[in-house]
């Protein structure tokens, strides 16, 4: 694992990996389109699509008007017609205007017409906080997607796999929501030879072995979680760290299997607690893995309050110290 390794000067970042995946997708299938606000000439506010318009033209890398429902809605029409739109929503907090299209159509139309491959579209969404952004730029809206049936929701977490995960989503004929923890876009670098060529978008990934406890995380909590596991290891507690990767559906078998090893589980996420992915992990353990639990699972999330101003975000989110403490408590 290179997650917490010192930054390297060569190598590539998560942003690079995502950008390359988009390039590959545009290159391999002329029906693939990249659409979104400012994705063309500007290259997106995070510069993820930089250069793609010049390479593929403005009909394939499309600057959309500022209207998210129209963006997803026209994307649906294009997908029905056989195109494969990859839609960038500019920030997590601006997905809400598109929820009618996502919840009533993207999530239902395939079953409505009994055609699973009806909507080969991917919605990319920068998510998560700790970047001192203004209001509604640090959200974790995964629940809104996960609670919408038949949508597949995955989250990137590491530079070495982000590209392959995105390509798997793009190449799938099912609609995917692909979450990009924006804090991690350029935080870590991995060497080219470390890039993972293929990722199963339905499988959780064990990032660290450890027999004393299991920590379940995803997205922007992955590097934090690995740091907590190291901190716990420094105190002699070996913690396995599982990255969910797929938030909907959950890779239930892997979660249950890993939880059974120690029977001591901590789940941590940036999202608020209520109706969260993390709550579902606990529910899974309680209903299907009850017999293997050796103590109450611990759930660390942000409180059921709106994401606060930048000055207060560190207190709002579970920290490395919080998670380390929880690991120590379950392993005690």
């Amino acid at each position, binding site marked *: 694992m290179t997650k917490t390794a010192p930054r390297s000067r060569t190598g590539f970042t998560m942003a690079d990996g995502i950008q390359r995946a988009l390039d590959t997708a545009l290159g391999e299938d002329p029906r693939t389109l990249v659409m979104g606000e400012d994705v063309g000439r500007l290259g997106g506010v995070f510069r993820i699509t930089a250069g793609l318009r010049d390479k593929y033209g403005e*009909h394939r890398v499309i600057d959309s008007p500022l209207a998210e*429902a*129209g963006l997803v*809605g*026209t994307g649906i029409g*294009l*997908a029905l017609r056989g195109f494969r739109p990859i839609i960038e929503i500019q920030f997590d907090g601006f997905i809400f205007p598109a929820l*009618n299209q996502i919840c009533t159509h993207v999530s239902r139309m395939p079953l*409505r017409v009994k055609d699973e491959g009806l909507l080969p579209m991917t919605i990319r969404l920068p998510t998560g906080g700790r970047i001192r952004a203004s209001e509604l730029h640090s959200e974790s809206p995964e629940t809104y997607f996960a609670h919408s049936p038949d949508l597949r929701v995955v989250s990137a977490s590491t530079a070495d796999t982000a590209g392959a995960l995105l390509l798997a989503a793009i190449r799938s004929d099912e609609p995917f929501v692909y979450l990009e923890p924006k804090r991690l876009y350029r935080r870590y670098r991995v060497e080219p030879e470390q890039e993972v060529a293929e990722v199963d978008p339905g499988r959780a990934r064990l990032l660290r072995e450890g027999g004393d406890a299991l920590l379940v995380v995803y997205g922007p909590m992955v590097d934090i979680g690995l740091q907590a596991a190291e901190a716990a290891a420094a105190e002699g507690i070996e913690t396995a760290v599982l990255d969910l990767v797929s938030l909907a559906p959950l890779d239930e078998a892997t979660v249950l299997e890993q939880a059974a090893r120690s029977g001591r589980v901590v789940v941590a996420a940036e999202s608020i607690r209520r109706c969260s992915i993390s709550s579902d992990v606990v529910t899974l353990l309680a209903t299907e893995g009850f017999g293997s639990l050796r103590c109450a699972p611990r759930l660390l999330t942000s409180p059921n309050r709106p994401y606060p101003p930048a000055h207060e975000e560190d207190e709002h989110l579970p920290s490395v110290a919080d998670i380390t403490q929880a690991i120590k408590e379950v392993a005690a």
Partner: protein
Amino acid sequence: MTVTDSRPLTDWEPAYRALTCGRAFDELALKLQRQGVLDSYGEARGQEAGQIGTTIDLGPEDMVFPSYRQPAVALARGVPVIELLRFYAGADFCPWDWRKHGFAPYCIPVGSQVAHAVGWAWGTRLEGSDAVTVVFFGDGAASQGEVHEAMNYAGVFGAPVIFVLENNGFAISLPTARQTNAPELYVRAAGYGIAGVRVDGNDLVAVRSAAEEALARARAGDGPTLIESVTYRMGGHTTSDDPRRYRAPEELLEWEARDPVIRFRAALAGVPGFEDRAAEIDREVAADLDRATDEFLSERGMA
């Protein structure tokens, strides 16, 4: 306007058949719902001319995105009667082969289908096809933000789409005059830099000629058109509705005098041979519906 000025009667047969078939289906569905065989039915009586006039000249490669009140168009596009019945019976959300018929699934959240049509049309354009896409929505749906967004997208990308705004006077109980303060809805086209026109939606000939212009514009790559088809919902919103709670009976009488089926028959009356051919078509349509009804009832275990 009379028909024969510009076209031979044979050219009008498909429109006549479609109109007749739409009206007959409406009556059938209403009856079946009253008998408890269908869960609910949204009546289309009075709106058939606007619906058929805007779609009868489409080819198989063209596409229609309906709202939920265009059975006449479904049938004209080849959707079998029994499949429409299965929809209203609550058996299936989209019993028809939407690609084959070029008739998209009905869409329940009002206005949300408009962007799909724009995306589809934009796709045809990216492909270099000259296919045209028609999308239906109501005076109520026109208040939805998503309709605004979709029309603006169509303008920006020059999508070959025809927006058919069926202004039938009501969104359930709300009259158009309280839906918006704008006396005419087609003027919204100017706000998107697209063409717009208002037409008497109960006059099939007038609608068809407006649609022809829009079709030509779209096929030529000159962008979208908003057609406001002014018509009247003669029935209830659905069979669960009771329009007597919110509208005066005289208003309905007025519009019955403008019944689009009667008006189209009148327009054709002078055409030599019309009566005979029409009677034939009427019989064929009735037989078709009877057959489908029998099959449907036996499938439901009711025959």
